[in-house]
């Protein structure tokens, strides 16, 4: 299976828009994500037919219908498994998985982890609106503690999952976070996810204006955004704030702290981000309540992919044993002839 040649005429955003009416609520954050995807794809120079979007069930998972590519809207939580079978057997395809916080971390948590640890070359976008949208507003595994929802009128009593933590715990080779309305950043991250040679996991903070409006207000509101967001950049010190005068430093006991730059403290004391360093992602993913929310790439490392491993083995077997000979295989072992 070889790469199909790239078509002559450049594709445009419109080429990636399907003829299906978009069925999300007006104002839903999903619209922006769809737009960014449709925007970056033409830049990637991939023939449209080599793109497949696989999703589970949920509002987010409606995504494939709106992309004028191949698309498979599957069942709740299982998209990573289905995408694994597709990608492993079809290395020529570019396979994206679209999932939600319920789809990907509640019912589908295990498939997500296993796809990531295997390093199957699929790109998983988890639209995190901290709620079950499609089923009309129950709390999700990423909902904050004490969340009052339809299913928790007294407030939830379980600690949320941190999607970045879970992905890092599974030793995913690419782990990132971006925001639905942060158009530029999102485009960049989607492109980086595409370029990564291995599984990519991208959490996209997404607003559900119907059942969990403003869940991400602190990082999307124009006024507070700069102070509440820490944009991760490879090999750059961790600086943030409207005036870029705040930074993150590691105390001697390895716990991070926020410091103000200028005066006694200068940049050189700050923690420098490194996508490839093992401990880095963990420190950043757990900064906690008094810190800004990091966005960007927590971790990006290279490792053998499951797809490679599989194909190298098959190729080696063919080299060693020759292409399969069915006649010989049927006749394997002891045989005898009845005249």
């Amino acid at each position, binding site marked *: 299976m070889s790469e199909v040649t790239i078509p002559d005429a450049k594709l445009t955003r419109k080429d990636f828009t399907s003829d299906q009416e978009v069925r999300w609520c007006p104002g839903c954050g999903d619209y922006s994500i769809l737009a960014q995807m449709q925007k970056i794809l033409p830049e990637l120079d991939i023939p449209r037919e080599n793109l497949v979007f696989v999703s589970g069930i949920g509002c987010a998972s409606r995504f494939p*219908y709106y992309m004028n590519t191949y698309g498979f809207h599957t069942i709740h939580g299982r998209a990573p498994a*289905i995408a*694994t079978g*597709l990608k*492993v057997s079809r290395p020529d395809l570019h396979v994206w998985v679209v999932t939600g916080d319920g789809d990907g971390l509640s019912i589908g948590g295990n498939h997500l982890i296993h796809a990531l640890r295997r390093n199957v070359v699929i790109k998983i976008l988890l639209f995190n609106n901290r709620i079950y949208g499609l089923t009309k507003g129950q709390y999700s595994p990423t909902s904050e503690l004490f969340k009052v929802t339809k299913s928790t009128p007294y407030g939830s009593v379980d600690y949320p999952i941190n999607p970045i933590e879970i992905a890092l715990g599974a030793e995913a080779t690419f782990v990132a976070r971006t925001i639905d309305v942060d158009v530029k950043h999102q485009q960049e991250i989607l492109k980086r996810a595409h370029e990564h040679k291995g599984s990519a996991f991208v959490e996209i903070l997404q607003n559900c204006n119907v059942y969990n409006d403003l869940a991400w207000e602190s990082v999307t509101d124009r006024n507070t955004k700069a102070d509440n967001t820490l944009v991760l950049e490879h090999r750059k010190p961790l600086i943030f704030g409207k005036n870029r005068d705040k930074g993150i430093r590691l105390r001697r006991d390895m716990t991070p702290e926020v410091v103000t730059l200028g005066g006694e403290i200068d940049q050189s004391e700050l923690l420098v981000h490194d996508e490839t360093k093992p401990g880095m992602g963990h420190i950043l993913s757990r900064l906690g309540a008094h810190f800004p929310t990091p966005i960007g790439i927590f971790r990006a490392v290279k490792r053998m992919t499951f797809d490679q491993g599989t194909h190298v083995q098959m190729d080696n077997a*063919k080299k060693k044993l020759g292409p399969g000979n069915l006649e010989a295989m049927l006749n394997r*072992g002891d045989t*005898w002839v009845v005249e």
Partner: protein
Amino acid sequence: MSEEKGATAHTEAPPSPKAPKRREEREEVVIRFAGDSGDGMQLAGMQFTNETAVAGTDVATLPDFPAEIRAPAGTLFGVSGFQLNFSSHEIFTPGDNPDVLVMMNPAALKVNLKDLKAGGIIIADTAEFTEPNLRKAGYETNPLEDGSLDKYQVFPVDITTMTLRAMEGLNLSQKVATRCKNFYALGLTSWLFTRPIEPTIRWIQNRFKKDPELVEANLRALKTGYFFGETAEMFAVQYEVKPARLAPGKYRNITGNTATALGFLAAAERAGLPLFLGSYPITPASDILHEMANYKHFNVYTFQAEDEIAAVGAAVGAAYGGCIGITATSGPGLLLKQETINLALMTELPLIIADIQRAGPSTGMPTKTEQADLLMAIYGRSSDSPVVVMAPATPGDCFYMAFEAVRIALKYMVPVIFVSDTFLANGAEPWKIPKVSELPRIETEFRTDPRGFQPYLRDPETLSRPWVRPGTPGLEHRIGGLEKEDITGNVSYDPANHEKMVRLRAEKVARVAMDIPLTEVRGDSSGKLLVIGWGGTYGAILEAVERLRAQGKSIAHVHLRYLSPLPADLKNIIPLFEKVLVPELNMGQLVKIIRAEYLVDAKGINKIQGQPFRVSELMEKMQEFLEDS
């Protein structure tokens, strides 16, 4: 057995040992090997099967082992048995009662003695008949000595000691050396029944090729046992079973699971498509995964998934990508896959699900056989969700039905459930190897032409929708589990469209009935009693019916290999008989379907013991039923 890989040489004629002893010819012999689960009885049984098959007899086997890996030595629950029936005429079952017991300890004897035929042979390893072992087995006195076995021919042999003695000079721990005693027992039994040990010698050489010490050890054990028979005075008679007059051709021995794997492989080769097996280990299906993991040089992907759902999910993903997508499991795994099977049904992708039934419900008795997943296979999904269901009848038939499952799945773009069982999966029989060129081609075409393309525009004959590989320019489209509009495949909540689509999916499955062989009636084409069976009970039913026919009874046998849809001609056959009887290893499942479909007062013969039918018990029940009129 994946362990056999590599040994492809054709077998020479069986050796003829010097024979100073008396030779007696037997037409049919049933032997049961039994010992601790660590004693290697399954291996001994399989090797004996191979020897006698290579010697040209017909043979049928019944492995029967506990769920424990190596249960503590000497316990009753830890006994592992392997029964085989070999004969100079065609046979269909592993035999009701053994003629010979090869018993490695008192527990084995305790468990198995009740089945031995009157006057049967017992070979027992005296070294294991110790005080503590006798006590564990619940014997107060040593049965080898207390006269309780007087009505049998008992051969007490100190197998353990003689095996250990044979190892002298080798650098083996006592533990490893002792482990070779199964080959001693095999050697002795092979001698007693004049079976050629060359196939076993080759097997040992190949299996342990990385460890010459072990090759030597096992060969010594085997040969020592063999020559002990030859030389020991104890054995005055050597038995011989002549080759059977099987249909001419080249044969090998095959288990149902191996045949299943090969059937899938052959179908993929004849379709010219890559094959993707997604599976999660579960007894008794795991061997299909093990076997196919060796097919990498064919275009075969095997994927051990994190669970059954991921396994079938990956298979559906691969099918979507243009592979033959297969998953193999057992009952407790099948129910987890049903949601994904429904996805394949809705998106009309080909998918093959092998369910190797075991005794249940729940974890049940995981290593025992049963036929109780039929209704689940047919009805166990949400909403109206017809799929094709078929079942092989013998180990060798697994090959053809697996092949057939793939053919139908591809042709109709439909999920096909292939329902085998533990008895078929682990049981072996001589199998006439088909020529590849005689296997039909499976024609499939991926749609590539964008002109007039619609994802749900159907082939007028099969009603199947086009199969489109992602990567095909101009055919970009979206599918999914929401109800689809006819022809366009767009999401649709239109009431009339839903009804239409539900009926189309059902009709597609129904049409398969026109694409399968005519039903074969064995026996009179009309008469008093029609016996309808399915699955691994084939041999036992067949033999019971044949014997009753030989007694002049008016009885016939139909064995269904297609369960959904049922063969179209069955409705013409059933009314030709006064009564219908449906033997099943369950509480009565096919019988429900037969009754509902044909409004005939069919009755069941039901056994739910984790064991196959005995011919005798079937005959008894059938006779009762015949008389009951």
